């Protein structure tokens, strides 16, 4: 992307130069919105062990965007339409609406992985069909799969902002019952939480989030923002509220870093965002392992896994 000279080591100036381009300003705006939402929703997705459903929703965005391109519509329609529809399809697979999926609901993958996998394969195949129907425009295919920072319009940002704020408001409204149903579905149901409804609502939020995130990172690299920061946060703290805050913080940081480096380097944004996300995950995993080992040493104070 090295538009103008490249990195000069005067970081403030570099940032100013970067943001003086309207497309970069839009990229940072869009990236920030998407990162905040993906960090928060992603934390709950990881807690609910629905990463596979999340990945599938992201892949479903690809035929949506490809189909919209083929029909000459804005790709945003395709992303949002297909991801939300996909969320409802996945929610209709028996057993998916609840977290975990095991009979006790306390972890382990359920039978529905197979069903979700089939949906994912079909979605990819449809995307491939739409791309070949459209003919040509291979760089467009790359952008759909791996993301781009150029060409985010003001209108797109408005759509992302509305969808993002909507997702966050819905997430706060679901709040405690969503956490309860994610961690302990059976007791939640006995306490009057509509576990199935909460699960479906969460999948729709996840669909909206992946649709928004796909427009920055591409369909295949959604996990850079949806899983890596959340998984890192879960390793750093066992407090749900702090976990969401850390996850959002990491997602925003990773996005800003990725966009800035992508601007000054010849390599694409999807690669950089994913790489920084992976780095954060590795660091958090290393920290967790070290902290657990320290707390297990004889004579160590009882701090095993204490929240940090």
């Amino acid at each position: 992307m090295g538009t103008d000279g490249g990195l000069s080591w005067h970081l403030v100036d570099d940032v100013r130069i970067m943001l003086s381009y309207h497309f970069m300003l839009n990229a940072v705006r869009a990236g920030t919105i998407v990162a905040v939402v993906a960090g928060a929703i992603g934390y709950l997705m990881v807690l609910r062990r629905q990463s596979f459903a999340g990945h599938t929703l992201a892949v479903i965005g690809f035929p949506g965007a490809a189909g919209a391109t083929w029909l000459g519509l804005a790709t945003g329609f395709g992303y949002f339409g297909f991801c939300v529809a996909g969320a409802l399809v996945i929610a209709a697979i028996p057993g998916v609406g609840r977290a975990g999926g095991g009979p006790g609901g306390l972890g382990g993958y359920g039978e529905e992985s197979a069903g979700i996998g089939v949906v994912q394969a079909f979605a990819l195949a449809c995307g491939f069909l739409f791309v070949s129907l459209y003919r040509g425009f291979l760089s467009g295919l790359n952008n759909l799969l791996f993301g781009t920072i150029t060409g985010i319009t003001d209108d797109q940002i408005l759509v992302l902002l509305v969808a993002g704020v909507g997702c966050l408001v819905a997430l706060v409204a679901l709040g405690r019952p969503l956490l309860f149903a994610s961690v302990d579905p059976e007791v939640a149901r006995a306490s009057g939480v509509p576990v199935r409804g909460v699960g479906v609502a969460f999948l729709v939020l996840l669909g909206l989030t992946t649709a928004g995130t796909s427009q920055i990172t591409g369909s295949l690299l959604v996990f850079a923002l949806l899983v890596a920061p959340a998984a890192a946060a879960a390793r750093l703290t066992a407090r749900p509220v702090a976990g969401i805050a850390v996850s959002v913080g990491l997602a925003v940081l990773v996005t800003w870093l990725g966009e800035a480096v992508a601007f000054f380097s010849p390599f694409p944004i999807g690669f950089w965002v994913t790489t920084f996300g992976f780095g954060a995950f590795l660091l958090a995993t290393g920290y967790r392992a070290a902290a657990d080992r320290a707390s297990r040493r004889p004579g160590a104070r009882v701090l095993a896994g204490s929240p940090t």
Partner: protein
Amino acid sequence: MTERPVLRAPDAGLCPAGAAAGSGAVVSLHRAAAAVGGRRVWSEVSLRFSAGEFVAVLGPNGVGKSTLLKAVLGLIPIVEGRVEVLGARPGERNSAVGYLPQRRAFDPGVRVRGTDIVRLGWDGHRWGVPLPGRTARSRAARDRVREVIALVGAERYADRPIGQCSGGEQQRLLIAQALVRRPELLLLDEPLDSLDVTSQASISALVQSVCRSEGVAVLLVAHDVNPILSYLDQVVYLAHGGAVLGTPEQVITAETLTMLYGTPIDVLTDRNGRLVVVGQHDVPPDHRRASA
């Protein structure tokens, strides 16, 4: 505590017709039947018990012990007869019922603190998130969570991720979760399952002391009566679609169980007072196992 119901043949119904609907009972069933997926699990079950009583539900596998708890919670419909829980229909007063379902342990990867799990029992059913800052309500919640964690003796590991707690520790935290809203009725589904002998004894003692000190009625499903035998007030024995309620001495006898199963059953007592239920050769395998 209360008058003991008269022991009768299961097919005749166990309590006098009017007794089950009487007042003062925490749970009362009158000739009730429950069905799961169209299949009748049990029927003609009549029993009642009151506040502060520790009642165990015993019986062979698949006889509907967990179904009984779910029926009391209103999660499974009653297809026949009458069930009253805390003076209302099942499910209507669940905010006054603490429930610990049958389960495997939390996965080691679950990184949520025990305190948070207990807190979800307090206000996890309320929409939204608590308002930030130290309001009176948030202070009350925090105090109650701390109090109940102390009651079950879980202070030492309550701030650890629950996935990293041992089975007995998790069980204590989950009992704290079930107790946090000061329920009048506690439903525990096999809380002693997969615990070692020491933990079984300490959890049983804990349940009894909570039952006495908080005046909570406890309905506990078990497949082995021996760890809880010395703590119990009453036993419900479910078998072959019927049930018998009474003290362990009344119910776990060769005579009663023979009547319940419809085939000859022996009850042996070892030197330490442990009971072993032994069936005859013509009893199906799952019933022959010493399951009482």
